[in-house]
């Protein structure tokens, strides 16, 4: 039996318990709140100012956290993923203030893994949504640990180079990769009979926006594959997230300018009447062929010395 330990942020536990007791009181469970407050009052009487915040308050709140059933939600969620049950695992649950800070991260070495779950207090008051959130995050973590997913070792997605030619391009690929991964995760959760955080229709809309450069047929085909339950590895998803047109120069049907390497939708491919500009570019880029095209900014850059030379000659 592998060991598993869950550590909860004491301030998170206190806040969740306090607000849940208040909710219970408002909905009629007076006896619970009376018991809670009278037990808590005794703690204040036992403790002096300097000692407040110590172990007795913490263990008091942990007891109620367990009694209210919050700890078991986490335990059940972890237990439903085989990969997480088969390793030495520590889970640290921390309180965050904003929804964009929520999520899960994996740390550790071959011997022992640690999962950090960042979560807002308000999420605890909709237990179904809390379970859905945990399932979503823990399936991502399972993927990271799954040899079949082939996630590159010791790599943080936020810092990894994903084959883009610039940080900006890597960021775009990363954003699309995250979306693909989420769709893939949600499809499998649905198969497992678990709640998903977003509907297929909502994800489909997001998918269409992020992959608007694809044809309708390609969008339909890839999306259907993602939600069908087919198996994907990390590199498969990254490959889909990359934009093939960025690898090709403007004149060859892509978006990349062969001179400055920035992507552009405004390319020059017809050089009629601009022979002098072509010569000026070739002076700096001897291997460049006019058929490869150039972006409008580079074209304008070479137009300026051309007009200077012509003025000097006249």
């Amino acid at each position, binding site marked *: 039996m592998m060991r598993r330990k869950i550590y909860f942020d004491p301030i998170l536990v206190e806040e969740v318990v306090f607000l849940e007791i208040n909710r219970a009181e408002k909905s009629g469970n007076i006896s619970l709140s009376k018991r809670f407050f009278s037990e808590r*009052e005794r703690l204040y009487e036992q403790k002096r100012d300097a000692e407040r915040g110590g172990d007795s308050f913490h263990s008091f709140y942990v007891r109620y956290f367990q009694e209210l059933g919050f700890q078991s939600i986490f335990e059940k969620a972890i237990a439903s993923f085989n990969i997480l049950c088969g390793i030495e695992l520590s889970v640290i649950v921390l309180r965050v203030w904003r929804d964009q800070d929520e999520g899960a991260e994996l740390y550790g070495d071959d011997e022992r893994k640690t999962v950090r779950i960042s979560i807002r207090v308000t999420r605890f008051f909709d237990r179904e949504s809390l379970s859905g959130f945990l399932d979503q995050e823990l399936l991502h973590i399972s993927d990271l640990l799954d040899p079949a997913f082939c996630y590159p070792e010791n790599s943080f997605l936020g810092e990894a180079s994903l084959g883009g030619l610039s940080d900006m391009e890597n960021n775009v690929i990363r954003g699309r990769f995250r979306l693909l991964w989420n769709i893939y995760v949600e499809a499998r959760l649905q198969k497992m009979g678990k709640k998903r955080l977003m509907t297929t229709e909502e994800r489909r809309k997001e998918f269409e926006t992020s992959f608007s450069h694809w044809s309708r047929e390609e969008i339909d085909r890839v999306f259907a594959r993602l939600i069908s339950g087919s198996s994907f590895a990390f590199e498969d998803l990254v490959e889909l997230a990359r934009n093939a047109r960025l690898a090709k120069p403007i004149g060859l049907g892509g978006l990349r300018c062969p001179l400055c390497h920035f992507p552009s939708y405004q390319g020059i491919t017809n050089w009629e009447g601009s022979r002098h500009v072509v010569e000026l570019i070739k002076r700096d880029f001897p291997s460049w062929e006019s058929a490869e095209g150039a972006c409008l900014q580079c074209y304008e850059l070479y137009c300026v010395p051309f007009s200077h030379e012509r003025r000097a000659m006249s």
Partner: protein
Amino acid sequence: MNQQVYNWQIGRKMSYPHAEAHPEWQFAFCFNLNRCIGCQTCTMACKSTWTFSKGQEQMWWNNVETKPYGGYPQFWDVKVLQLLEEANPGAQKWARKGEEFTFEGKTIFEAAEKRVGLEPERVLGYLPTDEEWRFPNIYEDTAVSRKGKPMTFDPEGTKLPEHKTRFFYLARICNHCTYPGCLAACPRNAIYKRHEDGIVLIDQERCRGYRKCVAACPYKKVMYRPTTHISEKCIACYPRIEGNDPATKGMPIQTRCMTACIGQIRLQGLVRINKDGSWAEDRYNPLYYLIRVAKVALPLYPQFGTEPNGYYIPPRWVPRGYLRQMFGPGLDEALEKYRVPDRELLAVLQLYQRTKEIIVRYEIKEGKKVYETVIHGKPFTLYNDTIVGYNKEGKEIVRTQVEEPFYVRPDKHQNSI
């Protein structure tokens, strides 16, 4: 069982969980919002004095928020107004009787009485969530404006009397209310109002962290500190008010947030209170003059019913409807007086932050007429009067003029003009 108490700001008696009991003096302040530049020096002066230690993240006893969108906690005022409206739909109104106004709606205490629930509540309120406490200065400098066109300026945007593109800074501390919501709600009687100066404090030994005060204070100026498991609030720098600062040799001194104010928007003092709770006539106390004589400074959301002792000179460029909701029906008179100030008002306005000590009396020595003009269609004459401020012992502590002294730099420096 609630008692009947008199609240002069709403012009009538109202229901309150405790019987009337009034202090000898009342801590009060008057902020001129037309001058606030939102620099947050007051916020940091308070923070670095009182709330710097572990668990301080939510402790912003003083904050300056950009209105109309900003607020700490987020949307505190809109939420309380909404709760009151839900409790008394369509009836939260003021009525005029001659020169006086009466609030005919329900205060937070009266609205709570009518609430049907399992556990009776003494005060109508709510406990803000984490999301609402997360940014003390959310929407800083975010203006209301008309829908614009790209690359064009709105020529009407900043025309008086009301700017169409606008925001203003609202500096806030605890109002040390006459009928505090926090005090009324505390199940432990851990909150008390001091007899000597009306400052509202939390007894840190009695507090058991129920957070009823956090929910009840309509201004959300009580904050819970999870590291100590008890609530905290502005203490009005009471050691300074008591005269314990060695700099003033026993004389009361204004709070840290007041004296740090570089925009000179703040004037703080003490007003004498009669046994029945009314303000004792004190014609030459600058606060008494601004609030009760000139009526240029108004309480924040008087309809909440706590009789706050913080007063504001409203910003003159903001639409009147918004300000009327915020400062009550005295708004139009206050703005009219501030726009074209009379001789005495102009002189008293010079007293803002010219001294750290508390001015309990002022005197005006008439000076020469400087010029005459017409402002907003009204004649205006400027006199270079001198105003003198005195402390509790009658000692002169400040002397200044309406026209700022003009110094010509001697012609011996390289950069002399």
